[in-house]
């Protein structure tokens, strides 16, 4: 049987969920037996080269590039899984939701202690090449259909592993208390 093909990405996230994923320790050897990676920071493939079975999403959507990536994932993956608080709810980046976008941009480029006197021409990044900020940070499921959700900040390595294993093998997902508690 051919291996399941997995893609992963981090959008408006901190890569903490990917780090947690790598925290599966020696099971990384089983992982290589179990799946093949396509577009992912793990193997540094930048663009999809084929249709995938599973897409793991870290982070929500804060800018137009995030949206584009997310839509690519939806097109190329049979199953999409939101991994972690930011993908599920927007997470820390969503703290800016509710603050007018102008205030956010002014704070970042004009008024913050580190930029206050360093930007005399009051330049705001506006190159056409740059992604455009969205009005607020969106959770992934508000942009495309998401099939499964793994909560946590980050979700424990065991949770990510168990979920991926269950998806690939078709076995029942193991959810012991230790894997699913957050205190």
């Amino acid at each position: 049987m051919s291996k399941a093909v997995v893609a992963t990405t981090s959008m408006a996230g901190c890569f903490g969920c990917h780090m947690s994923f790598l925290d599966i320790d020696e099971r990384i050897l089983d992982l290589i037996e179990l799946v093949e990676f396509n577009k992912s920071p793990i193997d540094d493939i930048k663009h999809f080269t084929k249709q995938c079975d599973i897409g793991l999403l870290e982070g929500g959507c804060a800018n137009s590039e995030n949206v584009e990536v997310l839509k690519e994932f939806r097109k190329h993956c049979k199953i999409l899984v939101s991994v972690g608080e930011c993908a599920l709810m927007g997470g820390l980046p969503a703290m800016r939701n509710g603050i007018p976008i102008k205030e956010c941009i002014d704070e970042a480029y004009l008024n913050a202690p580190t930029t206050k006197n360093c930007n005399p021409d009051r330049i705001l990044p506006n190159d056409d090449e740059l992604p455009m900020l969205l009005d607020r940070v969106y959770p992934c499921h508000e942009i495309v259909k998401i099939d499964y959700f793994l909560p946590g900040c980050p979700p424990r390595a065991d949770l990510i592993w168990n979920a991926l294993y269950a998806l690939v093998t078709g076995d029942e997902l193991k959810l012991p208390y230790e894997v699913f508690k957050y205190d």
Partner: protein
Amino acid sequence: MSSVVSGVLQEYGNDAGRLMDILLDIQAENGYISDEDITGIATGLDMSTADVEQTVSFYHFFARKPMAKYNVYLNNSAIAVLMGREKIAEAFERESGCKFGEVSEDGLISLEDCADIGMADQEPAALINGLVFPNLTGFLVKELVRDMRKGVSVDELRAHGLGDGMNNSQHLKATVNNNIRKKGAVIFSEYQAGSALDKVKSDRMSPEQLIELVKQSGLRGRGGAGFPTAMKWDFCRKAQGEKKYIFCNADEGEPGTFKDRVILTERPRLIFDGMALAGYAVGAHKGILYVRYEYMYMKHYLESVLTEMRNEGALGKKVNGIDGFDFEIRIQYGAGAYVCGEESALIESAEGKRGEPRDRPPFPVEKGYRGMPTVINNVETLCSVAKLVTNGVEWFKSLGTGQSTGTKLLSISGDVKYPGVYEVEWGFSINDILEMSGGDPATVQAVQVGGPSGSCVGPNEFERTISYEDLSTGGSMMVIGEQHDLLQDVVLNFTEFFIDESCGSCSTCRALAVMYKKTLEKVLSGGGRRKDIDAMLSWSPIGKASRCGLGQTAMNPICTSIKNFRYLYEGHIKNANEQYEGGFDIAKAVADSCEVVGRRPNL
């Protein structure tokens, strides 16, 4: 501490439990509550300033900044919108030269939105400095603003002549109309003041016998939930406590309800006698009538009725000459919070705190006002008690249906010829109501039964009967004609109302209602998907985890209208077969940030 603050504190014996009255009085005197006032109150009551501040900030009508000379609060409830509220708002903005949420440059007029003010039968209506101005038209607004500029005092500002009935009396002088369209046997039939207590005295009725009598009558609470009144009284009578309290809930904040307004105006003695009966039955010596702020115009009138009762011996020591029965009543005003209609929130508010519902149990009958056993009854319930004591159980049971005895007051508003209060026996259908109130069945698209927290019912259910057995209601009936956009004007309005009025305590209420609103707006904007409709239905059990009825019913406007008017929702879905994309509008989402940084969106 200013002399105003110290005077008011002294009047209430420096009792932190009377904080609501203290704040209302200071605001009445100064027009707002300043930082200095808050510090003064906190010192005087031995509380933290944060505790004072949290009560002040909870209520809509407490102002923390100096207000204008004339403060206009224009109702923005769904019925007001149906009755042309937007035109009135425009007229106010045009004439005063300021926008809603602002004060005019000369400091003369401020404009604010407010939730339903209990005038759904005479909308559009506004509160100006606490007085009600109903049936507004563009022309009247022009006249009002002109008179404000002339400096006419609020008491003399008149949009109309005085209203009917007791509205015309010396103590009320209100421009509000009663609009009693149908008088029934219980509430609006003649009542000889004090006769219910005379009956208790002449029959030598014991408190237990009185409770038994109420039990025989089958009377159930008229607030909407329908709890048997006798059972509540019995629990309270048997509960341990050195003091007991009777509350009459006249907060009626449910949009579209205004029957208590009319009872308070026309039958205050019936209410107060009912409270005294409840006090006699459970062994309470103190009654509190909790009235919503919007009915502040009745304050002097209601006080005058109580004074009269004291002079007659109907209150005070040995009420009506009944040995060992002392009873006093005081009036507690709210300050604009829908959730205070919920009984435990009402108690919190009467204790001077934020109107946050309590966890139950313990129920108020065990631990209520100031920790003592407390009965809270609806205005109509207490009136029914007084009447059934006077006229007898058999008479009462002959009215209504098997499980729903007596009569019910309906507040009918919206697209009908004769909006107003109707007293009818239980067991009528919605079609009967439309016929009675002059609604045209051919052009009525929906009736909202029981206010926003009730059900949005379509013509195929107009034969259902209003009773505890079928469609239960606190009495609000809003009739919505086909010319209106049901989802935009009514359902969205109701959902926003719940968001504004949530006390914020339970996340299931605080967050869920917002999710409902956002999803409904997404559907209305054309970006919705069929799954959004199903998602909204599937969320509703989450709301049931909320502590009180507000959070538990905040999804009802959307969920009941999806159930009965799904086609209206589906009509907004452009791409019905799309399953994977959520209808996200990227052009809209990036527009603001591109403008701020000065670039053109490249999508």
